[in-house]
């Protein structure tokens, strides 16, 4: 971890060095004869430099106009570029009022260039002398993301640290989550009643982490189901989820020692369309009357339809989602609800595997960091704004800089 940090720091300093080297602005003055008509204005200054934090092939040209744009007959700025080696000159673009910089993305990293800027007034060209020679280059690290990297490394480092320490056998305390304890109870009840259980992993594809979390919980539920020999029914709305869910349930049956009892039809693809799916799930609920419904994943408007229909057939319902807008309905219409982060934690809880549990503790470190930083930030901001404290303002700005997304 520390080694990584060092590498990162090295990369950062290297980048900044490269940046400084390439930052050699050229200043220019108007040639006397053409500038005579507007000689009461100072000359326009133009500088060109390699665009920062990019993948090369780009030079930024920046200029400051002392007021030519306000002149009558102003038609814009014409930017020209000269390739130093070949001597080829290109007229790049005419830019209207208001522009003070232009990113030239048609350069090659292998050549050097100079730029000139012409102010177009009533057909007359007031051309600046050319800038210093400039060459574009690619950077290996995006400087703006230094703090993102560091914070990321701290949080991920904490997660990995606790995973490792859990692997070594350190005992970890975790508070209980009510919804999880209800899962076994719900499956048990379905078995007693001889009715199926229904599992919905939300309506998003595998590119949503909530769906993946839902499926990992499915893994544990399916194991219980296989042991009790209950029927599980899972309509899905994308075929990738179908593939993953089948793998999950099949594995659970194999682990429970009953591979023959598994059947691909436990997971059915319905349709990708949200309400086409809801219509079908509603139908299944009313016709098959599952004893327990699990709604775990990413849900949208359909949450209430499913939860209400489930409620009306008297099923035990355990729901969980990280979609805040749907939580009130789950809270109201379901027996147990996993709120937000609890959904992601649930899969780790249910596995009971120390490594998984360790990762939860790691995430708690992230929360602790957030709380401490917010506390310090709020205090600094408060004192800085109410009593104009310079040092607190410095702290506030530092924190804001650290926690900016680049």
């Amino acid at each position, binding site marked *: 971890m520390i080694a990584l940090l060092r590498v990162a720091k090295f990369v950062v300093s290297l980048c900044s060095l490269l940046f400084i080297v390439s930052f050699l602005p050229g200043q220019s003055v108007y040639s006397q004869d053409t500038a005579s008509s507007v000689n009461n204005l100072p000359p326009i200054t133009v500088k060109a430099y390699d665009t920062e*934090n990019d*993948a*090369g092939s780009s030079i930024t040209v920046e200029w400051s106009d002392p007021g030519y744009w306000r002149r009558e007959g102003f038609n814009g700025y014409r930017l020209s570029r000269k390739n130093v080696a070949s001597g080829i000159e290109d007229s790049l673009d005419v830019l209207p009022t208001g522009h003070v910089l232009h990113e030239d993305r048609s350069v090659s990293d292998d050549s050097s260039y100079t730029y000139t800027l012409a102010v177009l007034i009533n057909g007359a060209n007031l051309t600046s002398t050319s800038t210093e020679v400039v060459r574009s280059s*690619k*950077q*290996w*690290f*995006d400087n703006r993301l230094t703090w*993102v990297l560091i914070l990321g490394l701290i*949080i*991920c480092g904490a*997660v990995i640290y606790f*995973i490792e320490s859990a692997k070594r056998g350190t005992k970890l305390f975790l508070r209980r989550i009510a919804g999880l304890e209800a899962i076994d109870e719900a499956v048990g009840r379905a078995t007693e009643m001889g009715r199926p259980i229904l599992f919905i992993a939300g309506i998003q*594809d*595998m*590119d949503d*982490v909530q769906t*993946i*979390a839902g*499926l*990992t919980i*499915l*893994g544990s539920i399916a194991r219980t189901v296989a042991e009790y020999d209950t029927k599980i029914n899972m309509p899905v709305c*994308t*075929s*990738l989820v*179908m593939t*993953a*869910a089948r*793998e*999950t349930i*099949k594995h*659970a049956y194999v*682990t429970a020692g009953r591979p023959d009892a598994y059947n691909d*039809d436990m997971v059915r*693809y*319905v349709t*990708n*369309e*949200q*309400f086409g799916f809801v*219509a079908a799930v509603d139908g299944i609920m009313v016709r098959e009357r599952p004893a327990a419904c699990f709604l775990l994943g990413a849900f949208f*408007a359909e949450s*209430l*339809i499913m939860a209400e229909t489930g*409620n009306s057939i008297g099923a035990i319902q355990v729901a969980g989602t*990280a979609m*805040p807008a749907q939580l*009130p309905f789950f809270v*109201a219409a379901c027996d147990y609800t996993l709120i*937000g*982060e609890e959904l*992601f934690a649930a*899969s*780790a809880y249910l596995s009971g595997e120390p490594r998984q549990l360790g*990762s939860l503790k790691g*995430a708690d470190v*992230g*929360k602790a960091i*957030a709380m401490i930083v917010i506390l310090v930030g709020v205090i600094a901001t408060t004192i800085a704004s109410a009593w104009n404290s310079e040092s607190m303002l410095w702290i506030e700005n530092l924190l804001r800089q650290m926690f900016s997304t680049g």
Partner: protein
Amino acid sequence: MKHQIPMLILSAVGTLLVVSVFVPSAQHWGEDATLYFDIIAVFAFFLGGGNLIRVHTEKVSHKSAGWIYSVVTLLGFGIMLVTGLFKIGNPNGIAGDLSKSGSYFQLLFQYVMSPLNSTMYALLAFYVASASYRAFRAKNTEATILLVAAFVILLGRTALGVLLTNWIPAQLSVLQIPNLAIWIMNAPNLAGQRAIMIGISLGVISMSLRLLLGIERTYLGGDS
């Protein structure tokens, strides 16, 4: 073999994408990966379509209960597919916008899919009413708080809120229901949303890390 290779693919792709964020010349990898996902997702559509056809033809051929509805599904699927893939009736032919007005695809969308979709959604209005009558009860402190907040917002979003409380003087104007609703949105609601968002982001980070490290692999058929 069956498990190592997928794990390798997963970790390699994931790590590459994490790294690419920080390296300017690799930043387009993220874009490429999402483009690739889309193309794979189209194959997934085909897989889904294949499954749909399989399940429903089986139902029809076995004449199992409700097979007639499977015929309806297959018909709907076939008609939509044919009109869409061949752009039947599209004024601009094969090059036209798929949903060009006048094309049969757009007609089916407008007169069949759209009413079905909106009506399903409209059912929610009824379910909301039923839920407010039976489920939203002040069973304990938490439920009561939820109810009171919902109450204020509901009143505040209508003219009724203004009528009821605009007699309250400017000195106490936050107690006017529309203002109170806005205050709830801007203060406690914002705090709650923020706490949920921070919590979720940490949940996602630790979940993603578990996936990349290969600790969580249920969806690949476990670690046996």
